[in-house]
């Protein structure tokens, strides 16, 4: 059950409401743009998983890096990236966070500490532990959050990276977003044993299970875990159980699951839940509608900006490859 927050937390919850709406609107626009060809490639939407991104990232400072996976728009928004630059990246424009070279699956924004989405499942885990090691070497007291899905726990870098964080006591918060699926497969059907949390525990990392659609609870738990990281208590594992309300990609009709199942899960929509909570706590519906509208407006502005932004010159394809032995146009 959701706990009753105090007044200071009320403002915090409203911020979550705004950010989760921003993510939802971004994903809906990305979905539409992918369908009509304005956004190319595979686009992995985080609709239904907004609470995890918002709850975790609200506990991080700008200088605390995050590492993401292929489903990374929500994490990037929650970490503070500009929706305009993000949408421009999805549309491949020069003003995109990566100048149009990465697109949805490689979105990154280093100035807000977002070290990159990743097209390879579980590849972010070693990168995250290495980032933490570098921060320590540089004497910084930052912490790192690493987002991945339940499918990633079956790849070797999961075992290697978690073990690594443990033996060096690195300040890494591992966030497993368990949405039940790995592409078109139910993850449970291909995962031995009791799942992600116990696997982390078996490597000596305390695991904490949480309702991944309850942003208040995620925020509170992530706050505790980040505090432990900052106090030198070593890595922590957050196992957020959520549900992917859309297909694996924007092009996936997800026929491998019953409509009734999805319908039932929409009743647990994290944004609707947060709205109900805020109303229960006495916030006026009009105020919430205004927040939602503002978020939607920001994303519509980002789409308009991105659509009219120029592409980088084609020769930019030869830039940022390497210094020594760089290719000549």
């Amino acid at each position, binding site marked *: 059950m959701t706990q009753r927050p105090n007044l200071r937390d009320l403002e915090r919850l409203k911020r979550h409401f705004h950010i989760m709406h921003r993510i939802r609107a971004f994903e809906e626009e990305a979905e539409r743009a992918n369908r009509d060809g304005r956004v190319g490639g595979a686009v992995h939407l985080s609709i239904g998983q907004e609470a995890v991104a918002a709850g975790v990232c609200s506990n991080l400072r700008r200088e605390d*890096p995050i*590492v993401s996976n292929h489903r990374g728009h929500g994490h990037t928004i929650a970490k503070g990236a500009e929706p305009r630059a993000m949408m421009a990246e999805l549309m491949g424009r020069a003003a*995109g*966070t*990566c*100048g*149009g*070279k*990465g697109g949805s699956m*490689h979105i*990154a*924004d*280093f*100035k807000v500490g977002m*070290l*990159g989405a*990743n*097209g*390879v499942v579980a*590849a972010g*885990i*070693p*990168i*995250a*532990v*290495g*980032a*933490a*090691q*570098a*921060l*320590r*070497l*540089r004497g910084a007291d930052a912490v790192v959050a690493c987002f991945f899905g339940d499918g990633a726990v079956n790849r*070797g*870098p999961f075992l*290697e*990276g978690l*073990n*690594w964080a443990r*033996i060096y006591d690195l300040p890494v918060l591992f966030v497993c977003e368990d949405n039940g699926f790995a592409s078109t497969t139910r993850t449970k059907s291909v995962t031995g044993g009791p799942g992600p949390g116990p696997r982390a525990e078996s490597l000596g990392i305390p695991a904490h299970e949480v309702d991944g659609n309850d942003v208040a609870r995620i925020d509170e738990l992530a706050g505790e875990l980040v505090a432990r990281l900052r106090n030198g208590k070593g890595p922590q594992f957050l196992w957020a159980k959520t549900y992917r309300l859309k297909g694996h990609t924007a092009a996936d009709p997800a026929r491998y699951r019953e409509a009734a199942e999805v319908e039932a899960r929409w009743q647990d929509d994290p944004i609707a839940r947060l709205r109900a909570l805020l109303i229960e706590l006495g916030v006026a519906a009009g105020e919430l509608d205004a927040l939602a509208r503002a978020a939607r407006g920001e994303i519509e502005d980002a789409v308009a900006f991105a659509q009219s932004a120029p592409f980088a010159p084609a020769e930019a394809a030869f*830039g*940022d*490859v*390497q*210094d*020594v*032995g760089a*290719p000549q146009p």
Partner: protein
Amino acid sequence: MNTISYLEASTLALRQEMERDPLVWALGEDLGRGGVFGQYGDLQRRFGPARICDTPISESTIMGAAVGAAMMGTRPVVEMRFSDFALCAVDELVNQAAKARFMFGGQAKVPLVARLPIGMWRSSAAQHSQSLESWWTHIPGLVVVAPSTPADNHALLRAAIRCDDPVVYHEHKDLWGLKGEVDERAEPARLGEARILRPGNDVTVVTWSKTVHVALEAAALAGSPSLEVIDLRTLWPWDRATVFGSAQRTGRLLVAHEAVRVGGFGGEIAAEAAEQLGVKVRRLGAPRIPIAYAKPMEDQARITAAAIAAAARLLLG
């Protein structure tokens, strides 16, 4: 000038770079005890376990952590032990290290050095003897280096550590004990510069790593054509000016390497020289067989001085 080994030259280079830059560090298995070949010497005692970091047998994460650490502004030196084991870290090297700078539009560079010792050494058989340098030359974003002498292992390793690109650094296991003069105060090498080790008139022989010494031996064989031996030193980028200048003079180019001939980097150099200069070219490399354990079979994969001289004679026609 001091006479030291190829192995000691690498220890010296790493020590100097670690003294110079506190953000240089190394990670890999058994480094605290000097590493599997002893090439890390007593560096852990000097610099502590955070900078000479002993790792678990986790090649993916050794390389992947180095990518994250490099993107966060440090300069990791990654020890893979045998180049064969780097195949457990190919995603991290090829999809992550080589591409991060590009994919992210230049927001970060990945200044890591991945040490991948190559080559046949003490009957090590099929999984501890390979020379896979051509794989990495194929990957945009990577620099590929293969020193053949102690002085070069000193100067090139220092250059690789200072380089802002990910560098695949191939030492040859059979050269660890090779002695030579090393000037401790020498400037780091310039990556991408070949060196003409021996002038000659008939055939340009381009080679690298241990095969450099085999080519020099070939040039000294009685009855061998006059060979101009070029040590490529850096495979990517490779020094076209030096190679083409020599090939234009001699009119004939032979590329010799220990790696399998099919798909080897010799094919690239030979093709470029044929396309650009129209000179006669040949390639010499190992047959496309895994490397066997027993000496007589292992030798089937070995490039000999006699084979180099014979290939050069064929070019003279």
